[in-house]
């Protein structure tokens, strides 16, 4: 996995094939190899299965609301069922009951799933794109660029994340996208940069980089086609962890009511909490258990995939 870059002489493809095809084949092969290793990790597979399950669950939302469910009743934000007293326990109409203001818990859960994916993946992608770019550039160019970005990372590491976000949130309620972007940017310029830089640094001293440079490859070309492919697996690993931290932060901030988000798992618990239903656990379990469980499982899923990937990326962790 550390040797993802197409090294001369490996691929058996004949030279008549265009370069990109060779690359593609190699990528596919290395992906297949990685997958083989990943499959060995039971934890990672559990994670993948959970993520797929969440994916399906989230994908059900648009289908349900457009076919089976009446938006007036099942809208996760403004829906209301006048038929019963709220919060109502699970019933045929509301499989997971309703919240204190009469909205369907299952619908909220489904609707939120997609949003959590968006939030987690968006912020993780931002984190990783920034971390990879900055880390690679710092490693490749060194000097001032390196110093500046490493200082920035140091300072960001100094920020107590959650309190700072709560402080910001309590002053300006962050809405969904800004929150995802802030999480992503803070993560990207922070610790990940340092880790990815170290990785990029270990790649950029390899002989084939020099070879590429001698062969007249531009900096951009070398970074994009030689260094980044080698940093990417590690980036991808940290992406998984970023998803977990983004979702957990969102939930915590929502719980404190300092986010401007119409619906999320954290908001569901917040709603139950501010209405005073969160304290008798046994009686109003449907108000907190589905969302609480969803947060945990979702985060755990990504975390587990991260752990699985760890074994792919870090050969020393593999079983012998």
């Amino acid at each position, binding site marked *: 996995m550390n040797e993802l870059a197409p090294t001369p002489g490996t691929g058996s493809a004949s030279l008549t094939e265009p370069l990109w095809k060779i690359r593609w084949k190699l990528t596919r092969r290395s992906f297949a190899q990685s997958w083989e290793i990943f499959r060995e990790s039971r934890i990672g597979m559990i994670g993948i299965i959970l993520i797929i399950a969440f994916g399906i669950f989230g994908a059900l939302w648009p289908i349900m609301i457009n076919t089976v469910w009446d938006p007036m009743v099942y809208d996760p*934000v*403004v829906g*209301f069922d*006048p038929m019963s*007293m*709220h*919060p109502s326990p699970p019933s045929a109409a509301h499989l997971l009951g309703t919240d*204190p*203001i*009469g909205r369907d818990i299952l619908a909220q859960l489904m609707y939120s799933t997609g949003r959590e994916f968006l939030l987690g993946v968006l912020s993780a992608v931002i984190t990783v794109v920034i971390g990879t770019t900055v880390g690679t550039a710092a490693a490749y160019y060194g000097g001032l660029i390196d110093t500046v970005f490493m200082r920035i990372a140091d300072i960001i590491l100094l920020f107590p994340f959650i309190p700072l976000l709560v402080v910001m949130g309590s*002053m*300006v*309620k962050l*809405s969904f996208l800004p929150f995802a972007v802030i999480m992503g940017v803070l993560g990207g310029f922070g610790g990940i940069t340092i880790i990815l830089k170290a990785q990029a640094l270990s790649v950029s001293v390899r002989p084939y980089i020099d070879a590429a440079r001698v062969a007249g490859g531009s900096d951009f070309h070398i970074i994009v086609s030689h260094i980044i492919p080698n940093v990417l697996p590690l980036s991808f690993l940290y992406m998984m962890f970023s998803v977990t931290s983004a979702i957990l932060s969102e939930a915590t901030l*929502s719980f*404190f*009511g*300092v*986010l*401007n*988000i*119409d*619906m999320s798992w954290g*908001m569901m618990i*917040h*709603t*139950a*909490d*501010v*209405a*005073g*239903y*969160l*304290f*008798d656990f046994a*009686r*109003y379990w449907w108000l907190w258990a589905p969302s609480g469980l969803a947060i945990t499982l979702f985060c755990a899923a990504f975390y587990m995939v991260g752990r699985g990937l760890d074994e792919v990326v870090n050969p020393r962790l593999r079983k012998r």
Partner: protein
Amino acid sequence: MKSWKGTLAALIITILVVAIAVPGFAGSSGLYEMSVFENPTTLNIFSATGPQSTVWNDFVASSQYYTSLYGLAQPYMTFVPSVAADMPSELKQEKIGGNTYYTSIVKMRKDIKWSNNTSLTADDVAFSYNAVLDMDPNKLGGNWPSIVDPTVLERVEKVDNYTVKFILKEKPGLAQWQYGVLQTYLLNKAYWEPVFAKAKKASDPVKELLAYEPIGEPAAGPFMFGKWEKGAFFQNVANPAYSMKGQITTFYEDGNVTIVNPKTGFKWQSSKPTGKVLLKVTEGPNVSGTLYRILGNQAAAVMSLIGGQVDFILNSLGLQRGFQEQLSQAQGVSTIENNVNGFRFMMFNLRKYPFNIKEFRQAISILIDREYICESVLQGIAFPQYSVVPPGNAFWYNPDAPQLGKGLTRTQKIEQAVKVLKKAGFSWEVEPEIDLKKDKLIKRGKGLIMPDGKKMPSFDFMVMTAGYDPLRYTFGLNIAQWAKDVGIPMEAAPTDFNVVSDKVFEEQDFDAALMGWSLTAYPDHMRWFFHSDQAGEGGFNPQGYTNPEFDKLADAFMAESDMDTARKQAFKLQEILSDELPYIVLFDTPIIEAYRSDRIEYPYTEILSGLQRYGALTSTVKLLK
């Protein structure tokens, strides 16, 4: 290595086992125990009334230690003398040193003592006012400028040991006089005079005074300071010298009140009391002290109440609905529900077209089905409201002010709103179609054309975020929905409270917003919220409502010192506001409270804004066990 671990594990397990085995230090202390959610921050009355005027400071300290010349007798909020012996004398004009002033004489009771057994005299009263005036109430900040109002009060003079004379710059209205100056807390001159003298010498006297820590300050109220473990609890002890202990206040059906103190022989009555006695309250305190536990969240407070660690949850917002059901089933716990004095409302920026068209606002008000949301969506968490004076404030509430759209069905509301809009010259590209019989909207309105012939652009309606206030959020979304039904292009925009505040009050740059107020008993808010002199930046009329007729009436109301006349004026003001709708009042929430009925007993529980309004009645509560 091995033995290390074993020892540590053993130690941890021992601690756990012992901790579980040894019960807590229970044992009730004869104290009345309450929970509060935030730390009080100061014992200094100048800070607590000034920059740190939080409700928590008032609950645990200010309201417990101090008395004033006059007060509002609970629970009917009747204006009665407290340290004063009788009502103040009629204001009269008097020339002093070349200027004309209004003066009034207040006679004081002679039986009031400080906790150090010295008498509370006219010296103390005069000092209380004059010292604050010398410091400049505006600099002291907080509530000082409104209770010792330097624009009204010139000086307070001692006439004899138990008589003071108020010298006023201008003739005050009820708000400034009875509900302001006369209810100011009284200070012990002997204690505070040296403090003031020292502060005056400092480079920043106000800061010096506010930073002062009053240890051993004599109290005249029912309690005095006991112990304060910051972050954990706050304890007061009963004032052994409390002069009003045993004093009986009797409320009659006709609104009259008598006060009798059998111990000292003091007697007072408002006018000839007649009719049935509604309530007889004997002043305590009946407890040796009060204990305030500082708990971080509601769940903890409720669990503590059920567990018997606290007797009452002191919170100006009361308890959330979800706790009510659980608490009412808990043994030995009773819940109380009271109306509150406040409202949530919607307002438009009246500087902008077409929001300045009265009919436009009326149409919106008609379209809003307050009852539907309150009863169906919110299921009684909130109750609908139409007037800027809540019905709970019975003396001042005008039941005859118009309530637009009340009791209409969905389609009737649309029909009427369309009618009102048409009357003002609005038209549609696509007019909404309704089926009155089936109560069904057939076609939504589209493309509202304003009277000036232009198509109405879409505008933002700022509502609180769901996290901050789910009720306002829900209301806001529904309102926007109904507005769109008739083609009014209103977009609900959930916005953070601070941003709304900034946009509305600082920048006055907004289209519409959903906000809330909580009020004091005397409804002078009508003057502050709607008088055109408040329409400037930083004023309380950010919606820019201007109505000379209203201004005139409001001014008269404020200047009036006669209760009955003032009441009539307040009614008229409400009528105007209900028609012109600078605020579209929507709803408010009742306050839910709970207490341990197996341990304590209150003389009454029906009070506007709940028991918390009076710090949960520390001076009249009785311990049963």
